[in-house]
């Protein structure tokens, strides 16, 4: 772990002397990209972070939303890409653990998880399969053991992640507003480290996350211990109830170095600590190792000497080790001692605030002609292509994944995984709806429109449950920011997200930037992952079974936007074409219309059109309800499109709503009032999924066969070579 030469010069200048070796380690950890956001911070400021429901407190690692009646929801998203790429099981598991502690830090109980997983081509690549299988197991073992339901997520495969793994985890917390930790400290308060012993595992992890992945031989792996994390959660919440915690922070990237310096900086205090007081796993650890170790399952607590006694009792009850490692001072310095001798003494604002960079950016060459349209051969029958898509890893049901996650524990999960967004009930009678979405194929073709599309898709999913989006989490994952072309894609995505957030008045309540995601073959595609949280004041849409005779309305226009679609890329192996773009005003109108449909209880279900387009979305309805449907393509709103464009284009802002025929008039009136583009495009019945033009079928698939293929395909791919 080291600073770059000019950073070292800068450090010397700032402190007016040569740094000690410990100071060097501390600063290198804290000035790493992972901890300091030095490349991105300047730009992230454009995101709107305020809103009527947002509660901002210093030192929070998670966003806080007021959901009424004295309750708050917290949320955060993180990734664990580099560690998962070399040790998928432990990397994914500790990724879950880390984001949960961010939720806990605010004083709220973690109540749900979502995971976004991305790997190389599992159909061809054994290594990708190994990574995928073990990452899923890592998420499952950790979340299940804690009793925090994993209620949703996404899975995607793309060759750009060959030999790499993207593991994003979002966590949601819930609690009483009065129980939020206020993060304050006064002189003489004690600094306590609780949790697992500090060991050599994960040394240099945050630096590692900021470097590109050159060799497997980095010993930054961390061993997950969900059992101790569970005990930490219960102990902290008990201590919170007893009001024993003045301030709190979890130990993540950069270990003690970052936790201590950031806490001190955020609270405008100094902290003096002694490394000898840290409980370690091995007796011969060097003080520098102790300062930067990223051993998991640890929390930093600030309390006072009276409360400490009770706090220790709680730790004893749960058999968690805790040690008083230092105390609060008022000189704004991070003062580290060993054997009573100073080994580091440095202003926290120097440590915690790396000089921010303003990296150059340049529109990538590859984008010049990428949106040029390519027409694919027109077929008279797309049934086979359809079946192939349903079996494809990105479209096949993800039940093999979420079936391994306990998604019911906590008994809040009203809408379970397998639909669009999942819905949780809250203690105040309201409901929370959450989904995360990414789309690197579209973000590659158009970083701006692609990112907006992810945002809108997550909103769409939440809207389908009857929820109004109230907050957004962004996770911006890109390659090496020092490459101006890559940095340009980062900025474009960020600007797109900002525009959408402002226009729709959805504040960004948290996020994370992960850079240097490079594989042996080069940079990953731009991979922003967006989480949207929606609130339902009254009742969520209770999804009802679709029966023969029920009808289907399509809201929203289908456009000539096959770029980045599964059809283009999976079927035709073509990367390019026109990327779907969100029309803000159409998007807003459609959202409001769907929300009102749900509120008026006019519909049986609402489903968004996304991956695989209309053809896949209709099939999903048929397959989950085991009923056929016939859709004449000529009826689908949109102009002058070829059959494959209508079937497979992934245009945004589109919804499929199903309803009993008797409601048709009320429905149409309501939709007309909202002035949205819509049409009744089909009626359910029979045993096959049919699309027709001029009354001739272009797709005719048995529901039964389609369903079996769709449900089993992913599992088959994983289990069988």
């Amino acid at each position, binding site marked *: 772990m080291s600073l770059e030469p000019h950073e070292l010069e800068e450090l010397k200048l700032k402190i007016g002397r040569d740094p000690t070796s410990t100071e060097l380690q501390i600063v290198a950890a804290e000035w790493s990209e992972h901890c300091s956001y030095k490349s991105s911070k300047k730009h992230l400021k454009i995101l709107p972070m305020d809103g009527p429901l947002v509660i901002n407190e210093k030192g929070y690692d998670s966003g806080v939303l007021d959901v009424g009646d004295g309750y708050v929801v917290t949320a955060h998203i993180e990734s664990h890409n580099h560690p998962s790429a*070399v040790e998928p099981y432990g990397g994914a598991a500790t990724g879950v653990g880390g984001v949960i502690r961010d939720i806990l830090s605010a004083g709220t109980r973690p109540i749900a998880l979502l995971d976004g997983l991305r790997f190389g081509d599992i159909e061809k690549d054994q290594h990708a399969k*190994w990574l995928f299988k073990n990452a899923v197991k890592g998420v499952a073992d950790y979340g299940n053991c804690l009793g925090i339901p994993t209620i949703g997520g996404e899975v995607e495969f793309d060759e750009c992640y060959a030999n790499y793994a993207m593991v994003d985890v979002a966590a949601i917390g819930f609690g009483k507003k009065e129980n939020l930790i206020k993060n304050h400290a006064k002189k003489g308060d004690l600094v306590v480290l609780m949790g697992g*012993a500090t060991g050599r595992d994960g040394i240099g992890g945050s630096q590692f996350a900021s470097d590109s992945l050159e060799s497997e031989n980095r*010993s930054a*792996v961390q*061993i997950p211990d969900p059992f*101790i994390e569970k005990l930490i959660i219960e102990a902290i919440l008990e201590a919170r109830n007893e009001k024993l915690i003045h301030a709190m922070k979890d130990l993540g990237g950069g270990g003690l170095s970052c936790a201590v310096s950031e806490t001190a900086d955020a609270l405008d205090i100094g902290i003096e600590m002694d490394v000898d007081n840290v409980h370690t796993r091995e007796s011969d650890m060097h003080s520098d190792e102790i300062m930067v170790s990223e*051993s998991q399952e640890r929390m930093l607590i600030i309390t006072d000497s009276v409360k400490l006694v009770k706090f220790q009792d709680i730790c004893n009850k749960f*058999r968690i080790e805790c040690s008083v490692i230092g105390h609060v001072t008022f000189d704004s310095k991070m003062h580290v001692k060993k054997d009573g001798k100073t080994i580091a003494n440095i202003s926290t604002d120097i440590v915690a605030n790396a000089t921010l960079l303003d990296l150059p950016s340049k529109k990538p060459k590859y984008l010049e002609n990428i949106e040029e349209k390519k027409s694919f051969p027109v077929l008279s029958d797309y049934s086979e292509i359809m079946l192939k898509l349903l079996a494809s890893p990105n479209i096949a049901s993800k039940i093999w994944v979420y079936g391994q996650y306990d998604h019911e524990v906590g008994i809040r999960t009203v809408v379970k995984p397998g639909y669009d967004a999942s819905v949780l009930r809250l203690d105040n009678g309201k409901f929370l709806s959450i989904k995360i979405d990414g789309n690197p194929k579209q973000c590659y073709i158009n970083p701006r429109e692609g990112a907006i599309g992810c945002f809108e898709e997550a909103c769409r999913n939440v809207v389908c449950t009857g929820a109004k989006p109230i907050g957004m989490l962004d996770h911006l994952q890109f390659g090496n920011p020092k490459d101006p072309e890559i940095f340009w894609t980062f900025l474009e995505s960020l600007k797109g997200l900002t525009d959408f957030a402002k226009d729709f008045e959805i504040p960004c309540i948290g996020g994370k930037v992960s850079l240097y995601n490079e594989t042996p073959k080069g940079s990953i595609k731009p991979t922003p992952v967006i989480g949207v949280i929606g609130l339902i004041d009254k009742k969520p849409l209770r999804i009802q079974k679709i029966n023969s005779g029920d009808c289907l309305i399509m809201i929203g226009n289908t456009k000539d936007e096959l770029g980045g679609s599964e059809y283009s890329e999976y079927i035709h192996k073509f990367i390019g074409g026109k990327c779907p773009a969100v029309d803000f005003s159409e998007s807003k109108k459609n959202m409001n219309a769907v929300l009102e449909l749900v509120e008026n209880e006019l519909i049986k279900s609402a489903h968004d059109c996304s991956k695989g387009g209309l053809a896949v979305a209709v099939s999903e309805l048929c397959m989950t309800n085991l009923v056929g449907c016939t859709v004449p393509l000529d009826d689908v709103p949109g102009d002058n499109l070829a059959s494959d464009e209508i079937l497979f284009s992934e245009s945004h802002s589109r919804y499929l709503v199903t309803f009993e025929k008797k409601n048709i008039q009320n429905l149409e009136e309501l939709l007309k009032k909202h002035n949205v583009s819509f049409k009744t495009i089909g009626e359910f019945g029979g045993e096959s999924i049919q699309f027709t033009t001029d009354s001739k079928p272009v797709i005719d698939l048995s529901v039964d066969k389609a369903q079996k293929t769709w449900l089993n395909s992913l599992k088959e791919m994983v289990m069988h070579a």
Partner: protein
Amino acid sequence: MGNYRVHVTIENKPGISDPEGKTILNDLVLKGTHQNVSKINTAKMLKFTITENTKESAQSKVQEICDELRIYNPMVSVVTIDAFDA
């Protein structure tokens, strides 16, 4: 050609924590009357039966299988491979 038994023992690298061993020691063994146990480490074992020419080739074949199929992850674990006559 003969049948050989080959035992593969997979355990965490030295220095890497073993939470399971720790829990068994602290929450089970030391809570009883057995204070003279100072450490428990856990490992996983796979017992192969394989047809090969020699014990040595059986052993190296199994090593090859373990590496190729990623039966263990060298980032976290070490394996010990012992071959026996069946």
